[in-house]
Structure formats: structure tokens, C-alpha cells
């Protein structure tokens, strides 16, 4: 029952990886959004969300992530995801999120494909 979302950030030059742990509900979505907006204000234009430790999401939380993707697109930036459980990936597909953001199976692939520079 204790499922407070925890967020950790790893900055990599102009990019960043954001790690989530726990339930992405409305509060969790807002927590991610706030961290993402801070990073965007700080110049980050490539943000990888690693959801490895998130096992459950709801449609309100994901709709907030869609807003973040839109805000990032407005600034010519990009958001990508990795390490989704099959069911979260399916939920992303239902909600059309898979159209606006790249989804990678693991972080290694994402880092290579997105050309994320080493930790700055």
C-alpha cells in the first residue's frame, strides 16, 4: 500500500535520465512533471524516463506524462522511455503515447540510440 513515487535524476550533459520507483498516479505524474520541467528549464532537451521500478500506472498519471512530452516537443526536445513492463507498454500503446515518444527495452539500448553522453 505504500507506493509513493520516488524519482532520481542522473544528469548527462544536455540530457538526463530520470528513474522512477513506485506507482505513477496523479501525484506521481506531477512529481515526474516537476522534475522534468526543472531539467528543461535548466537546458535539458533529451530526457530518458527509466521506469524499471514502476510496476503500476494509472491513466491520470500517464496523461500527465503526455503533457510533459508535449511541453518538451514545444521546446524542440525529446522524451524517451525505457524498461517498461509489458503491461505498462501496452497501456502506453492504448493511450497513444507510443506514437510521441520512443520506447526502448533497456537503458543500454536507449543510451546508445539516443547518443546520451556520459555523466557530466
Amino acid at each position, binding site marked *: 500500500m505504500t507506493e509513493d513515487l520516488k524519482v532520481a535524476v542522473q544528469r548527462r550533459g544536455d540530457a538526463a535520465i530520470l528513474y522512477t520507483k513506485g506507482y505513477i498516479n496523479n501525484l506521481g505524474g506531477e512529481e515526474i512533471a516537476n522534475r522534468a520541467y526543472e531539467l528543461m528549464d535548466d537546458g535539458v532537451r533529451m530526457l530518458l524516463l527509466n521506469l524499471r521500478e514502476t510496476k503500476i500506472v494509472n491513466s*491520470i498519471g500517464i496523461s500527465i506524462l503526455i503533457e510533459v512530452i508535449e511541453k518538451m516537443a514545444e521546446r524542440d526536445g525529446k522524451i524517451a522511455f525505457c524498461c517498461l513492463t509489458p503491461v505498462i507498454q501496452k497501456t502506453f500503446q492504448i493511450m497513444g503515447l507510443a506514437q510521441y515518444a520512443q520506447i526502448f527495452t533497456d537503458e543500454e539500448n536507449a543510451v546508445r540510440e539516443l547518443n546520451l553522453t556520459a555523466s557530466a
Partner: protein
Amino acid sequence: MTEAVERQMELTLPMIEDIEIAVVKTASDLARELGMSGDQIDEIAHAVVEACINAREHACCDDQRIYLRFAGTSSDEGKPKLEIWVTDHGRGFDPETAKAHRQHRSPGSPRKRGWGLQIMEAHMDRVDIESGPSGTTIHMVKYGERRER
């Protein structure tokens, strides 16, 4: 030969923030006992979450409770089956209208809300809605894989 498993559970929960986590836990435990796979358990979890947040967000009732019923069966003969009823005593809604106004993937402008029912339907094998002025019941059914031996 494995034993036939039958599970029944009824709960009455307060409509408070994150109460769906208690429902997920209960549903997951039941589904696991019935021999469902991890992904199936996850699908059930995501469906009940949406049913519960709809009850909490849209029911708008004085009776601040969500009524859950679970019925599961599993035997050698057939696939394991889990039925879940999520009931609120709220104001109800017209499922047809809600479905007509449902959001679609419109490139460039994914809408903010309106995905709950679609998520339930995508993750479950059957979803029936009974709704009227005295409340709403979402009835969902999930079949597991036939057990291997």
C-alpha cells in the same frame, strides 16, 4: 492432478486516495492463487485501478465507499477465471455516451482524459457496465492460460 481452487472475497473500502493499491494487492493475490501469469496479474491490476479511480472521481456520492467482489475458479478442466465487480453508490452515467466521447489517438493532441474504460477493456477479457441513478457496477472477467503439466 492439481486441486480445484475456488476463491470468493468481498470488500467494502473507503473512497480515499490510493485505496486502489489495496484492491490491486487483493486482486493480485487471488489471481496468483488461481495460477495466472505475471502479465495477466498486471493486466488485472491496471484494470481494477481504473475502475476504482473512476468510482472515486466520478461517483460523487455521500456513501464514500467502493464495494468489491472477487470470484475466482481454477481447475484442471478449464482455464482459471477471475471475475471482479467494482460497485459505487454514486450518480451513475450512460456508458454509451461515455464511449462515444472517448478519446482517440489523435496525432499531435493526445487528450488528457477518457482512457479508463478503454484500458479496462484492453486488459480484461470482458467488461460490462451497469449504471443508473443509484450507482455503477463494473463487472470484469479475466481468463488465465490453461495450466501446463
